């Protein structure tokens, strides 16, 4: 069997793939957090719960209504986005202009309520959710076997991240969003309905989390705590990439996912802390993050 740096090659490739998959979720989730933080200046602690809601929406659509994976891929993010729009309109929008800590506390409280409610209804154990038949099985890449669904997740997340990036960097709506991130009052003084833009942005960020949740459902089990396990790492990714930086969130998500995978191969003991060690170093050397602008 071939080895690389004394590590069997298949183990290495396997961990890189797992790293890429984890990185796909880090990227999608930190992207939504970055979009929300950039414009709303709200640290959305409910992001993990919104990811969990996406997975549960897919699970419930299937078990209650018999609606399968592909429609759920559209419907679940819409449901999560719609809930987020209601949250923004009724609660979050009242907190703009006060200390950002209040937004953090509100979203943290919402996350606890959502997770608690789902634990109460469904228990802490995970519910299985099968990948669609088109994406089951594995493919031989020559150097390793790859489950098709995992390849799909990596590709889908790349498309989602690229699409979101294009939406923000290349469209008129994105220009409003970027400009309002810099100076919301002036953008509104030009006649742009900024309150609506804030609502839509929160909805979009949450919908991205919901979409990630649907993609995650067949890989990880659908469980009330799936989001809170992930969200702390995602916050570290956002800090490393630079708060509010879209590109930073995407690139850092994938890179840290792969680094974490590699650590599992070379020094497994450190694999659960490597991202936080990197975060600490980045905070010391470049407090604004790798892609962040100093303010």
């Amino acid at each position, binding site marked *: 069997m071939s080895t690389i740096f004394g590590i069997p090659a298949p183990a290495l490739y396997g961990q890189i793939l797992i790293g890429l998959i984890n990185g796909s979720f880090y990227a999608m989730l930190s992207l939504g957090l970055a979009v929300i933080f950039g414009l709303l200046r709200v640290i959305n602690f409910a992001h993990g719960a919104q990811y969990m809601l996406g997975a549960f929406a897919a699970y419930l659509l299937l078990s209650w209504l018999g609606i399968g994976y592909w429609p759920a891929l559209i419907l679940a993010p819409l449901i999560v986005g719609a809930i987020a729009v209601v949250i923004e309109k009724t609660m979050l929008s009242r907190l703009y202009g006060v200390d950002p800590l209040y937004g953090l506390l509100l979203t943290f409280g919402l996350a606890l309520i959502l997770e608690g409610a789902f634990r109460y209804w469904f228990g802490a154990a995970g519910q299985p959710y099968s990948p669609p038949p088109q994406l089951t099985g594995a493919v031989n890449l020559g150097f390793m076997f790859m489950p098709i669904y995992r390849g799909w997740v990596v590709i889908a997340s790349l498309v989602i991240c690229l699409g979101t990036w294009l939406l923000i960097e290349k469209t008129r709506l994105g220009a409003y969003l970027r400009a309002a991130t810099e100076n919301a009052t002036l953008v509104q003084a*030009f*006649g*742009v309905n900024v309150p609506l833009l804030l609502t839509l942005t929160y909805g979009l960020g949450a919908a991205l989390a919901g979409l990630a949740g649907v993609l995650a459902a067949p890989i990880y089990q659908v469980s009330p705590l799936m989001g809170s396990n992930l969200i702390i790492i995602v916050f570290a990714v956002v800090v490393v990439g630079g708060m509010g930086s879209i590109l930073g969130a995407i690139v850092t998500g994938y890179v840290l996912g792969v680094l974490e995978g590699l650590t599992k191969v070379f020094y497994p003991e450190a694999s659960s802390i490597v991202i936080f060690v990197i975060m600490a170093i980045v905070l010391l050397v470049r407090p604004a993050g790798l892609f962040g602008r100093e303010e």
Partner: protein
Amino acid sequence: MSSAPLLEVRGLNAWYGESHVLHGVDLDIREGETVTLLGRNGAGKTTTLRAIMGILRRREGVIRLRGKDLLGLPLHKVAQSGLGYVPEERGIFASLNVSENLMLPPTVSEGGMSVEEIYSLFPNLHERRSSQGTKLSGGEQQMLAIARVLRTGARIILLDEPTEGLAPVIVQRIGDVLVALKKRGMTILLVEQNFRFAKKVADRFYLMEDGRMVNSFPGHELDARMDELHEVLGV
């Protein structure tokens, strides 16, 4: 000049937090007129523009555009009723390129300049349309800030110290642009410290002191009133 004013401000009071900064400001601008606010730093000129636009929210009094009340409108509706704002700090967005900055404000009515017209009026902006907005020189940023509201079809533009800190040759260019806008029938409310510049374009002057309008006179009286102005403005 007996026609009803296009923009009418009556007894406008405004506050920054607890501090009362405008005291019963009255102001009229008729269609096609260029009116200039004079006054020392801190007299309330910028505050008057910000209060009219609705950026400063704590206000009382009357602000009417063609008889329609602006005071009760949310901020984004004010621009939509036809006011274009060019802030003192210019407000060019760093995360947008020149062309995106230009296209940012939504169209508010028919009859704005086309992008081609704007680029022929400001050839520099066309040359640098893909540059980051804040990479432009101060003069180019000022032109971009003006160009941005010309596209939207705004009927009145509120210009806050467009010549501040710019080289004489650029000031001259901006003066030419304002004269061209006047010829097109644009109504302009200008805040300006530079007399010579203001004299070239203003039909009427208002003089502000401590958040109050203390005097107003037609443009041709500027020279005759120089002594009085020097006293109030302390220049």
